[in-house]
């Protein structure tokens, strides 16, 4: 009985997924199909609730208010500019569609697989510490304090998006989780080919010089390199991460339109430009690369020479930022004092 119910839930969820994650038949036969991969057999499909669902729900009004606040911070993280955010990014820049979209690192899995061991910082992280990582690297800033209104609101929004998902199930079966790694590029990665892909597909929005576009004082298209972009410690500086983000999400509205090869090449091109220093910088880029090689930098161009320039060999923190490493990036031991 229990397993029958579970099965039915799953197949209903799969059906709901097909009809509500941009996968429905209507997008096939179009001139610009979305070609979003279908769920594979055995994959867990979760359709996160929408803001309409929130309004209709019977949850406590105060909880609803905090979830709305979390969503507002998520889609407009620039409201924390100069306080927690020191670049032109929003959470929503990488976790598109309000953090709900499959293949755009939807954020609900974080709420059900954490706390967990994380190789990047070599200790067990909970949801707030995971969010703090995004602020430290992708937003080139420093997180709202643990337990603060803003941090609780963001975490609550994540948790609510995971409504109904079992905790600590195997993450590998989750449909559309993260940015699934593309097959290795058959022709390696090329700066020159990547440059061409960038100029033909990306520069109309992100500009030839990678600086993106601001209009009336607001960010429209985020910078993909340079002072106002993510720093050298952000997960998306890893070529496998950026290539998958590009493949599944770019150009905007045209997911899966570039080939795997084009996606690898353009990721390599973008990540061969300068950006703010990795907060874990030891004062020596080659030493820093070596220190975090296995868990991170073997996938980035940081500390490597590209076109005669040693990438990351600078003290540039990204313009407005006046600290290298937020205090929150510290080792944990979980041992008695």
């Amino acid at each position, binding site marked *: 009985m229990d397993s029958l119910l579970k099965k039915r839930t799953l197949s209903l969820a799969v059906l709901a997924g097909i009809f*509500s*994650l*941009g996968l*429905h038949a*209507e*997008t096939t036969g*179009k*001139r*610009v199909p*979305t070609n*979003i991969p279908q769920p594979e057999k055995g994959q867990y499909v979760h359709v996160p609730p*929408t*803001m309409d669902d929130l309004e209709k729900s019977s949850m406590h009004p105060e909880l609803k208010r905090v979830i709305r606040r979390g969503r507002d911070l998520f889609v407009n993280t620039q409201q924390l500019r100069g306080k927690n955010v020191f670049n032109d990014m929003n959470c929503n820049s990488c976790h*598109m*569609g*309000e953090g*709900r*979209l499959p293949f755009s690192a939807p954020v609900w899995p974080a709420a059900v697989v954490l706390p967990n061991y994380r190789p990047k910082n070599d200790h067990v992280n909970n949801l707030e510490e995971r969010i703090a990582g995004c602020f430290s690297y992708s937003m080139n800033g420093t997180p709202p304090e643990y337990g603060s209104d803003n941090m609780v609101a963001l975490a609550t929004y994540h948790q609510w998006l995971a409504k109904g998902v079992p905790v600590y199930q195997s993450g590998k079966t989750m449909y559309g989780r993260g940015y699934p790694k593309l097959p290795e590029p058959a022709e390696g990665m090329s700066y020159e080919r990547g440059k061409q892909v960038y100029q033909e*597909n990306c520069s*109309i*929005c992100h500009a030839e010089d990678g600086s993106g*576009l601001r*209009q*009336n*004082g*607001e960010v*429209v*298209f985020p910078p993909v390199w340079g002072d106002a972009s993510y720093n050298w410690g952000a997960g998306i500086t890893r070529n496998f991460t950026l290539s998958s983000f590009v493949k599944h999400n770019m*150009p*905007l*509205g*045209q*997911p899966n339109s570039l080939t795997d090869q084009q996606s690898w090449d353009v990721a390599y091109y973008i990540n061969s430009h300068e950006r703010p220093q990795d907060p874990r910088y030891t004062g020596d880029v080659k030493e820093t690369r070596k220190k975090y090689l296995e868990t991170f930098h073997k996938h980035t161009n940081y500390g490597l020479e590209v076109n005669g320039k040693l990438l990351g060999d600078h003290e540039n923190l990204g313009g407005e930022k006046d600290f290298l490493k937020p205090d929150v990036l510290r080792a944990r031991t979980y041992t008695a004092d």
Partner: protein
Amino acid sequence: MRLKSQFITALTILLISITSAHGIEGDAKAGEQTASLCVACHQADGSGMNIPGGESWPRLAGLDARYLYKQLVDVQAGTRTSPTMMPFVNMLDEQQMKNVSLYYSQLEPTQAAGGEDATDRQLALGEKLATEGDWDRYIVPCSSCHGPGNLGAGEHFPAIAGQHAGYIAAQLRAWQSGKRDNDPQHLMLAIAERMNDEDINAVAKWLSLQPAKPAR
């Protein structure tokens, strides 16, 4: 003599500063003359006209000069089909197209029409599509390209807030049918063809009711 040459230098600097600010080398004053061809439809103040059941004429006042210029070039080249515009645009040379684009870009944006009869349901749907999108159907929010307040972003993404509802709806349908095809990288086409009639009517009406310029 020397005074005269200084005056000319100063004037030249002034003119260059006016024109290059818009990324288009042109003369808005001369553009005003050329605009005499346009006023019958687009009106003297560039406000255009919403015409229910007919072909609405877009508001041009305050739109980006580079966007306007590209549209004129495309109409002349036949890559944007407009039987109404074609005979007029064919009379213009490249410099006149630049001048007139610059002229309209410098006019004060006017308010639009066509959304007056919108229902609450249409307004709610229109606002959602314009500001949040419907990602379940991969309809990205209008503002993700058309910028804050949908008031336009750069040279490629025109202001659509405060544009006539009839014009917006007609353009979205033209993309759907393939009649309009001149958007860079088909960024607009991709979204337009995922929209249904209800979406188009709602978003066109909602946008037409929005402020045509940023709040001061």
